[in-house]
Each structure stands twice: as C-alpha cells, then as structure tokens.
C-alpha cells in the first residue's frame, strides 16, 4: 500500500475517533463554563476561566448520595454475581451429573430475554414482599440478570483447566469446598477481572430497574439521580455538564486502567463460542 493509501486509512480512522470522542470532550468543556459563555460563544470555544465551582455546586447539592449508592450497589452486586456464577460454572463444567447440559441451556436462554418483558411482575413481586424502594431489590436483580453473560464468559476458561489439578487436590485429601475456594477460584482470577469490569459497567449505568423500583432520593443511583437533577437545573448547562462528568469519571478511569484485561479476557473465552 502506498503513501496515499496510508494517509486515507489514517484519515478515516481519525474521523471515526473524532466522532467517538468529541462529544465527551465537548461535555467536559461545557462543564467548566458558565451559561453566558455557553450561550454567547461558540460551542467549540475553550472556557475563559476554569469554573470548578460547577462541580462544587452539584456535589454539595446532593449528588454525593447518589454516588455512594452507585458505588456500594455496583460493588456488592459484582461480588455476588462473580461468586454465584463461579460456583454454578464450576459445578456445570467440572462435576459429573446428568442434568448439567439442561441447566446450562436454561442459563443461556437467559441471554436472549428482553428484561422489559419481566418488569411488571418483578415490580409486583417486590411490592408484595416489601422490597420496593429498597436497594437490595436492585442488588439481587442485577445479580440475576448478569449471571447468564458472566457464566458464558467463565465457561470457556473453566473448560480449559486441566483435570490433574482436581485429582491431585482430592488425592491430597482436600474437600470439594477447599478445592473450589482455595485452588480453582484463585486460578480463574484473569477471567474474573474481565467479568468484573463488564459487570461493573453494566451495573453502574443501569437505568430501568432503579427507575422502576426505587422512588426515594436517598436510595437512587447516579443514573437515575442525575436524570432528576437535570430536571432541576434545566437551564444551568454548566451544572448539568459537571453532573454528567462526575457520573462517568469512575467507570472511565476503571476502564482505562483495566482495558487490556478486557480485550484479553474476551479473546481468551467468550467469543470462541
């Protein structure tokens, strides 16, 4: 390929890159401006002075509560999903029992289900057992709905573990619990970190369950919280921008830190399908 070819190639890649990243840069820019700058100047202009007070303002007006809720709900749901999915995947891939194929099939069907088709009965069930407006309803729902995809990614990894490990552990007198928690689980750390980040992205950004099941401000997560917030600050674009930046920053940093792990994990397991 000649010089012109490479030039065109990079031009195309650059256009896609600008399209992907420009909206976010613009978001950060307007989070640092005041309304006069936003409305009177070009949307491409740099802020005349950096207005951190937008961030201070939205943080003080209660976004901290939403932030904290997002952190603990995401964290606990991710840990629960990884534990429950690992136990199930271990039993399905390593233990001998007749129904294992059937049970696995059931989990994989779960991948194709539109969650909205289950929303009304879930709302009714949580209402009956007094779990409406209770963050634990969100935690268990996230865990259940993330199980199929998590197990799908774990499966490929579990199939490749050598049988000799189990034999050696059993001959040495280890119990099955010990084998799972002390030997197998630590061995799956690479794929666990992939599934952890995928789960994290999903839980942190989830909208419909929180919007439907949670009504009190004190239990809302960032995604739903910022939606109300935008309503209050309808005209203050700087404040809205700051709110949005606060809501995306943690996941952005986590991803940039772990992104190579995600690619590794996906190429080593899921997509071999």
């Amino acid at each position, binding site marked *: *390929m000649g010089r012109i070819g490479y030039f065109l*190639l990079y031009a*195309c*890649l650059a256009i*896609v*890159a600008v399209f*992907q990243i420009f*909206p*976010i840069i613009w978001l950060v820019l*307007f989070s640092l401006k005041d309304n006069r700058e936003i*409305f009177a100047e070009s*949307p491409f202009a740099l802020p005349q002075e950096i207005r951190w007070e937008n961030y201070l303002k939205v943080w003080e007006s209660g976004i901290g509560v939403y932030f904290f809720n997002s952190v603990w709900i995401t964290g606990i749901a991710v840990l629960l999903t990884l534990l429950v999915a690992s*136990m*199930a995947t*271990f*039993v399905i891939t*390593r*233990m*001998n*029992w007749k129904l294992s194929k059937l*049970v696995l099939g059931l989990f994989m069907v*779960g991948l*194709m289900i*539109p*969650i*909205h*088709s*289950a*929303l*009304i*009965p*879930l709302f*009714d*069930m949580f209402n009956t057992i007094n779990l409406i407006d209770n963050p634990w309803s969100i935690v268990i729902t996230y*865990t*259940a*709905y993330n*199980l199929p995809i998590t197990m799908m990614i774990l499966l490929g990894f579990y199939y490749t573990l050598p049988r000799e490990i189990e034999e050696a552990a*059993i001959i040495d007198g280890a119990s*099955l619990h010990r084998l799972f928690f002390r030997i197998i689980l630590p061995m799956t750390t690479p794929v666990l970190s992939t599934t952890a980040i995928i789960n994290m992205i999903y839980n*942190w*950004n*989830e*909208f*419909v369950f929180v919007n439907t099941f949670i009504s009190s401000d004190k239990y809302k997560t960032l*995604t*739903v919280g*910022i*939606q109300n917030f*935008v309503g209050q600050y309808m005209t203050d674009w700087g404040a809205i921008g700051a709110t*949005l930046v606060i*809501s*995306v920053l943690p*996941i*952005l940093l986590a*991803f940039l830190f772990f992104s190579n792990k995600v*690619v590794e994990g*996906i*190429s080593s397991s899921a997509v071999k*399908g």
Partner: protein
Amino acid sequence: MNKVMSNKWFIALYIFPALFLVSVLIFIPLLLTGYYGLMEWDGIGAMEFLGLDNYIVAIQDANFWDSALHSFLLALFSTLSLIIYLAVSMILASKIKGSDVLRKIYLIPMLLSSVAIAQLWIKIYDPSNGVLNTILATFGVENPPLWLADTNIVLYSIFIPIIWQYAGFYILIYYAALKNIPESIIEAARIDGASPLQIAFRIKLPLIMSIVKVTIVLAIVGSLKYFDLIYVMTGGGPNGASEVMASYMYKLAFANNDFGYGSAIAFLMLIITLIVTYIVRKLTATKEEIQY
C-alpha cells in the same frame, strides 16, 4: 475420584443460588407477564380475568405495530453499522501505529450510562446552541432541522447516539476475534502474493464469520429490546414518532397504570424477540466450524 466429583449434595448446594435467582427473577416473571396479560388490572387493585381480550386488542393496536416497526428499523440500522465496525477493527488489528490508543478512544462511549449519553446528545441536538446546528450555521444552513422535535427525523436522530454508544462494544469483539487468527496464516497468504484486501475478504472474514454471526444476533436482539436512550431523550415522542416496543410497554404500565394491557404488550414483545432470534440463528447457522 469419579465418586467425589459426582457428590450430589455439593452439586445441589453450588448450583442452587444461581438457579434460584434466575428462576425467581427471570423465568417466573416471564410466565407471570403472559398471565397478567389475561387480566384487567391497574397494578394496585384486584385483577379481573378478561381472557384473551388484551392480546386481541394488542394485535389490532396500530400504535403497537408502529413501535414494533421502529424497533425493527433500529435493528436494521444496527446490523448495517456492523460493516463499519468490522472495517475499523480489521484496520486496527493489522498492526498499524497507534492502534492501541485508537481502540481505547473508540471504546469510550460504551462506558457511559444511557442517561449521560441521552443528556449529552440532547445538548448536541439543541436547536439554538447545540454543536450540530452551530456547525450547520457556519456552512450557511438557514433553517437547520429541529432534530428531536421533528416527527419525520426524530427516529434517525436517536439512532445515531445508539449506534455511537455500541460502536466500541462491537469493535472490541471483532478486534479480539481478529487477534486470535494465527499470524502464520496471514503471512503465508502474503508470501503467496495476496493483497491486503484479498487477505481481509478471503482469509480474515471467513475465519471470524462465526463471531460476525453472533454479533448480528446480538445487534438484532439488542435493538428489539432497546429502551433507555429513547425513554430519556424523547419518551417516545413527539406524538409516538420515536416509540419502540419497550417504551410503549413502559408507558402503558407505569405511566397509564394499565398493567394488564402493558403485560400483554410485554409478552408479545417477548414472543417477537424469541421468534426473530430463532429465525436469525437459523439463517446464520454454520454447517461446519472452520478450524485453524
């Protein structure tokens, strides 16, 4: 050894939490949705059995079929956009300079919540101060479109951020698949005199075809159940012009308190999704797996 690995108590104990959660929170609710669809119910009071009335009304409901059409259009556009992602991934995976950085940039929108994306794009589409119309104004466009308020184009205005949001996800999957192709195969083709385009179409594409098929299923199924961005950006409006199946169901149940009819729509949505998934899987089924 075999006896230890067939310990029934252990199997039951370890499979139970996952099976319990998935049954109680996914499968039983789906069955209940079908059952609630047979009822007249406002979500609070007593249910009254109607028989198939809700389903019969739903099948004749023009608004429902409009929303289904919009969902199918989204599925079509999402599937077509896979071509771009595939091309980008092929370029990225062919060891060009800066591909690591570019890949990370492409992935970023995938990390943002739908609410943040929706708010961001509402601002981009803002008729007076948004980025888009500012650009159009510099090119001398006098009456730029009212992107989210025009019933003729609102649907397409919303498709763009949805496609933007998922680009990274598909690029990631294709990139990972392409990286799995052994370098020796590509090298052999190159020595035989194959051009980069020939390598892409004759060697790489067939080798990752099974992944491409998986992504087609994912794009179609994902589109049919899409909800978040539309709910936040337009709520299905103006005048139902951007309504999709899930947003129509949500409106019926949680805004109009018509839980019986909403359930009937939700159940039809489930059936449509499952039928389409089945058809797409049949159409894309591979007779023999390529080994390398």
